């Protein structure tokens, strides 16, 4: 039955791209719908129910559908099953026989399955002329169950005004439809009428209900038939149906890979083959230990002191973070890695303070200056790069740093055409140096230990600027000795 939509042929079938995002979901729903209707394979019982004076053919209760979903899709919570079932209804695959609103209820409410002819996977985009014909024909049939709801009556009135000039045509089409319908068997008509109504409930939903036919505009143009030449639900030929749907952007034909593309791919693959990779076991251990380290700092997993501002409406937590007087918990984080220490402005300050006490702050100041360089507008980069060279690397530089000759050579070369990344090698080298040498000593220092163990109150004069609060952030006094 899942292929039924194509076999049914319906005038709406446009052979869309099978793996477009919408189609993927439709096929999954259709798979569920097929299984749920297969009574022999554990599906629900579709029965004719005797009601007051008549029989209601081909229905199933909402509760049965919910139970089936729970059992067959491994769902634990009935709320989830109801939610999924309601979505399947909202997309038009099942519908309540006595309501325009397409949701699933976990009770005796009766539901029917939609005909594959009307499935959304047929890419219907029914015109208002079709809708007008439909509403018109409903008024022609003297049946209580076909009476128009208020919103439908309003829609009809609006359409009559809009199509005033061709209303005779629409009226005739509606009459023709009514004639065709009269020829059908009574029970069959009940079913078809309800399915037709459910189709329109999807494409012209009750005001306030979600219109599930709305599309994500980014995904529209990849359908094989992006211009969606529209065919009428009732087989009515109409000039206006050749209009391009306004919602579609012009599609670009998918680029076929050229020789250059494949050559690039081969180069890339060879590089990947050379790459030294870690085993999944080692990577798993690493992910676990990182998470374990930070879980106590994670407000969506652990509670925070004094309280999460969003819960208590009290911003103390944020005020404390902003103050440069760090809590012990926060100081402890600086000990996780040099990256963590440098991420925190207070950590950065304290590390700088420590280095100054050792007269070795030029490394960190260099690192910070290179960070700043990368944040500059393009226009300012060359001059800043030169300033950094003068301060840290030139012969007789006031804050001379120690680079290996290789990095020094490369950097010197880079400076001939200075750019934001001219100092990458040097910065990486200096970072490794700090990490292996001064950072370890920092963690053992009194400056750090006093804070970690909250041994004494220290005054906090800001020593480095917060990157994030100003565009032109570097106070030369901080970074440059001159």
């Amino acid at each position, binding site marked *: 039955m899942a292929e039924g939509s194509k076999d049914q042929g319906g005038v709406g079938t446009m052979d869309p791209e099978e793996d477009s*995002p919408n189609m*993927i*979901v439709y096929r999954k*729903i259709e798979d569920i719908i097929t299984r749920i209707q297969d009574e022999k394979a554990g599906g629900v019982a579709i029965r004719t129910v005797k009601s007051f004076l008549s029989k209601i053919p081909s229905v199933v209760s909402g509760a049965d559908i919910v139970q089936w979903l729970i059992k067959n*899709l*491994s769902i634990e919570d009935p709320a*989830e*099953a109801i939610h*999924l079932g309601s*979505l399947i209804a909202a997309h038009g695959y099942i519908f309540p026989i006595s309501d325009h609103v397409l949701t699933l209820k976990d009770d005796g409410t009766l539901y029917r399955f939609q005909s594959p002819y009307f499935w959304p996977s047929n890419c219907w985009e029914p015109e208002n002329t079709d809708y007008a014909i439909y509403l018109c024909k409903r008024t022609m049939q003297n049946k209580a169950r076909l009476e128009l709801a208020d919103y439908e009556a309003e829609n009809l009135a609006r359409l009559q005004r809009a199509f005033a000039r061709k209303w005779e045509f629409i009226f005739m089409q509606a009459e023709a439809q009514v004639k065709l319908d009269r020829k059908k068997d009574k029970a069959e008509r009940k079913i078809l009428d309800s399915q037709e109504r459910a189709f329109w409930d999807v494409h012209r939903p009750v005001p306030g209900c*979600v219109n599930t036919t*709305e599309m994500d505009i980014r995904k529209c143009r990849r359908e094989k038939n992006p211009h969606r030449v529209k065919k009428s639900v009732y087989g009515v030929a109409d000039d206006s149906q050749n209009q391009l749907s306004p919602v579609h952007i012009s599609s*670009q034909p*998918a680029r076929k890979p*050229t*020789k250059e593309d*494949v*050559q690039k791919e*081969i*180069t890339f*693959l060879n*590089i990947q*083959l050379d*790459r030294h*990779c870690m085993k*999944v*076991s080692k*990577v*798993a251990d*690493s*992910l*676990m*230990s*990182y*998470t374990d380290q930070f879980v106590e*700092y*994670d407000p969506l*997993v652990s509670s925070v002191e004094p309280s999460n501002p*969003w819960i208590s409406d009290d911003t103390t*937590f*944020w005020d404390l*973070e902003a103050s440069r007087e760090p809590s012990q918990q926060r100081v402890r984080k600086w000990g996780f*890695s040099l*990256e*963590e220490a440098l*991420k925190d402005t207070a950590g950065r300050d304290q590390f700088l303070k420590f280095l100054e006490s050792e007269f070795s702050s030029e490394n960190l100041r260099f690192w910070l200056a290179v960070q700043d360089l*990368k*944040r500059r*507008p*393009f226009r300012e980069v060359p001059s800043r790069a030169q300033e950094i060279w003068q301060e840290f690397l030139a012969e007789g530089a006031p804050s001379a740093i120690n680079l290996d000759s290789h990095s020094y050579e490369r950097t010197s070369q880079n400076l001939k055409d200075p750019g934001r*990344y001219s100092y*990458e090698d040097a*910065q990486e080298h200096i970072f*490794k140096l700090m*990490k292996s040498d001064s950072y370890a000593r920092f963690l053992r220092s009194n400056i750090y230990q006093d804070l970690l163990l909250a041994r004494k109150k220290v005054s906090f004069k800001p020593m480095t600027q917060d*990157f*994030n*609060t*100003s*565009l032109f952030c570097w106070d030369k006094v901080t970074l440059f000795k001159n």
Partner: protein
Amino acid sequence: SCDFAPSGSFSPFRRLPLPAKRKYMRSPLSPEMATQEVPLNETLAHLKTESETLKLKLEEERAKLHDVELHQVAEKVEGLGQFVMKTRRTLKGHGNKVLCMDWCKDKRRIVSSSQDGKVIVWDAFTTNKEHAVTMPCTWVMACAYAPSGCAVACGGLDNKCSVYPLSLDKNENLAAKKKSVAMHTNYLSACSFTNSDMQILTSSGDGTCALWDVESGQLLQSFHGHAADVLCLDLAPSETGNTFVSGGCDKKANVWDMRSGQCIQSFETHESDINSVRYYPSGDAFASGSDDATCRLYDLRADREVAIYSKESIIFGVSSVDFSLSGRLLFGGYNDYTINVWDVLKGTRVSILFGHENRVSTLRVSPDGTAFCTGSWDHTLRVWILMC
């Protein structure tokens, strides 16, 4: 040699040797020339075969390192227990689908953009609207807050990314100071400031990503490699990081070197469009969300997918993903109006959150991890927290 310390100092783009020049090779097609080396006249078909062979070899090599599953190793980790997450703020004011949002570094302000062309800056804590801009186009699919908090960037069907400085004067017309920065040849799908207000990274329906200098509007670097629309991007969290990851309609997630414009790693295991990518907080891995209804975790050091987050009952696509601060939780916003919360290590779903009345289109955890915000086609944004 590489440093494999767990806390993210591993550099994935160590200087690699250039591939050997392959201009000459014995031609298998003309035996009479077998004694000479001739310039290679490889046809597209030959190249494709070679590429396929290499792909298989690569997969073989990587599979050798796949000695265990993440969730197996994580069995020894303590379970998370019951999770109750609630909406603490609902932001109403957009007149149509909310498509994108971003947090300010101050942890409480938010910028959001909508299908009706409106971009709104909110103090989500008080729910007050602080600024509003009407873009000249509909479907503003991307927006971002500048690190300084002094500007926002946005764009969409206009194929551009524009920067609006935020004035302290609420009456000032923001549109007057608008600065056009990025120009693509198709819709703008995502944008992000780098660590500074001075550079913006963009992705587009034209299949490329690009890095721009805000002040001059100059293109600093472009990134080519996706075979279809690029839908999302995320910058590596490292302070010195110069990489970012992008996801596209070609089902690929690519990791890029911002300095050279080269793609340094690529992952293709999803079965449909990748709508969202987000780095794990250490920068060693990233998660993706796709129209195939799954989220996946890719580790850069293993160069491999190491987890897949899916359920039989979840059949609608994932629109956006983000991690909690420690990386223990992965939040996914879905097209079925729900948010699923995943235990990243164990691979199980911890919670399902109902509340939105239409697709969840965007989801971001706040900068200090105290809350996360979702935007939806139901015109609203919600801020969620964990209730202990």
